[in-house]
């Protein structure tokens, strides 16, 4: 009896240790960045007192202004475009008969699993064959290109869950085809569209590889800019402004995740409550 108890205790302790270790490995680097962004030292990792000056510099100085503006504008624009296109594609793919639908989904999934470096280089080659000047527009096209499959992947499951006659019910009650999509289908897949858009946004914000190959020498987002700075001046040149930027991005992500999850939970809860009424 005693040995069994001991064994259970051991197993529990192991579980706790593993969990703590996992979270430490995940979160210590983030905490470190947070600390460094508040550290009053321009070089090195010694704590030299609390400061907010890196945050002030981030917003007031020109040092990282261009890359940040580029990153955010590309993220917003590519999210809008890829969400609209992805939604249209998803609805179209879902309306196909089964065989074709499966084929289209396979085609859709290939870019998702394709390594970024292949996507980046192939896009670069295509742009140069078409003699596009690498810069804002090519980065935007590239980001739209790699975001669309994710938007589609988020929307298709929502479409599958709909009553198969929903669209026809819209037509039956007087909608034209486009009206039926707009008034009946879109409102019922809105959560899929939203999560697809969020995914596109985060993918765009933290992309390095594809941007690196499609942006040319002039145009930079934050990650390619940091990479260039490191390559130019070595590790010590890494400005703490970058830490401040990373911390803000991290906090924004947390806010978005909490927002999405609470929304979901509220939905689940009202649904559960409602099913209680159903005999």
């Amino acid at each position, binding site marked *: 009896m005693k040995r069994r108890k001991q064994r259970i205790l051991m197993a529990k302790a192991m579980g706790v240790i593993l969990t703590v270790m996992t979270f430490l490995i995940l979160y210590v680097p983030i905490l470190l960045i947070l600390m460094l962004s508040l550290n009053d030292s321009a070089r090195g990792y010694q704590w030299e007192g609390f400061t907010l000056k890196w945050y002030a510099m981030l917003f007031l100085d020109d040092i990282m202004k261009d890359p940040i503006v580029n990153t955010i504008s590309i993220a917003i624009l590519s999210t809008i475009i890829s969400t609209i296109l992805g939604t249209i594609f998803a609805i179209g793919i879902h309306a196909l008969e089964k065989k074709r639908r499966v084929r289209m989904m396979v085609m859709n999934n290939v870019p998702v699993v394709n390594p970024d470096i292949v996507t980046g280089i192939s896009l670069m080659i295509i742009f140069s064959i078409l003699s596009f000047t690498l810069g804002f527009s090519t980065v935007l096209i590239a980001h739209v290109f790699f975001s669309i499959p994710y938007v589609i992947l988020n929307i298709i499951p929502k479409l599958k869950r709909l009553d198969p006659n929903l669209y026809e019910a819209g037509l039956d009650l007087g*909608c034209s085809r486009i009206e039926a999509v707009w008034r009946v289908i879109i409102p019922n897949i809105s959560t899929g569209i939203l999560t697809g858009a969020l995914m596109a946004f985060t993918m765009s914000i933290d992309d390095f590889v594809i941007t690196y190959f499609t942006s040319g020498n002039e145009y930079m987002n934050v990650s390619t800019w940091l990479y260039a700075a490191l390559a130019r001046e070595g590790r010590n040149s890494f400005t703490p402004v970058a830490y401040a930027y990373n911390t803000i991005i991290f906090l924004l992500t947390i806010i978005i995740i909490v927002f999405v999850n609470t929304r979901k939970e509220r939905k689940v809860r009202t649904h559960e409550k409602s099913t209680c009424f159903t005999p």
Partner: protein
Amino acid sequence: MGKKLIELKNISKSFGDLVVLDHFNFYINENEFITLLGPSGCGKTTCLRLIGGFETPDDGEIIFDGKVINDLEPNQREINTCFQKYALFPHLNVFDNIAFGLKLKKLPKTEIVDRVHQTLKLVKLDGFQDRHISTLSGGQQQRVAIARAIVNRPKVLLLDEPLGALDLKLRQEMQYELKEMQRTLGITFVYVTHDQEEALTMSDTIVIMNEGKILQIGTPEDIYNEPKNRFVANFIGESNIFEGIMIEDYLVKFVDREFKCVDKGFHLNEAVDVVIRPEDFDFVPPSKAKIKGIVDSLTFKGVHYEINVMVDGREYTIHTTKYREVGDRVGLSVEPESIHVMRRQRS
């Protein structure tokens, strides 16, 4: 019954290699309750979808109120549909679901509110207007689906197995209410079901279908009493079906015995199928009977007993209120008007 409202002329429809409807012809009168009845996969839902405009026929014409409507979009037809799984809009509440069609027609707000409330009363969902769809029971959702369709005052309402998902008690209640609604509203109902009892209870006219073809069209009484062939007799109600020979007018021979009947107009010695409904057999003393047998099994069914009698190695099913023990020797008699003779199906 009123004038012809819908006519299907020579309609054919295939999906790939599968012929779903094969040169289909029938018409629907105004204010009629017509039921398309058949086993699943017989093409009845496809037929409904053609009338609703969700499919286009490969061949033939659909005529509505004197005009060919083959190419008319569903939203341009004065027809509304109750879908099998209701297809209510999950993002709208009860009121907005029902008001959906009226809002698209851009009716004044007060009229929309009035009509929705009238319709809610009609389907007995008064006070449910603010409820969310997911908080309704199956029966209530069914009522919303009907309300959402009839609030538009269509000339025709198409119903695709609308009661399939409900339990027996609720289903019988809804059958009665639907029939009542159809009478008071004066809307033509086209109803699809595979449930023969439902079809017999509700319809003015039944269209029996199998494998994309119409087997018989008639009133419920006609179809029950005068089935045209073996399939119809089997599908509608229970039957004892015998292979026989028409010896002359009013005389038919089956199970090696000759019986008087009321059928005529067959060829001499034509091979026929003979149908006798289980409730049309009567017990008589064996000495006076042409058919004698031994009671094989007995099941209590509530209103009647179902008794299986073995006669010359063949089982006869009989519905009767009289009690017989298993093993009893019994004689069976049947009145000439209860013997129904049908032309043999060519197969």
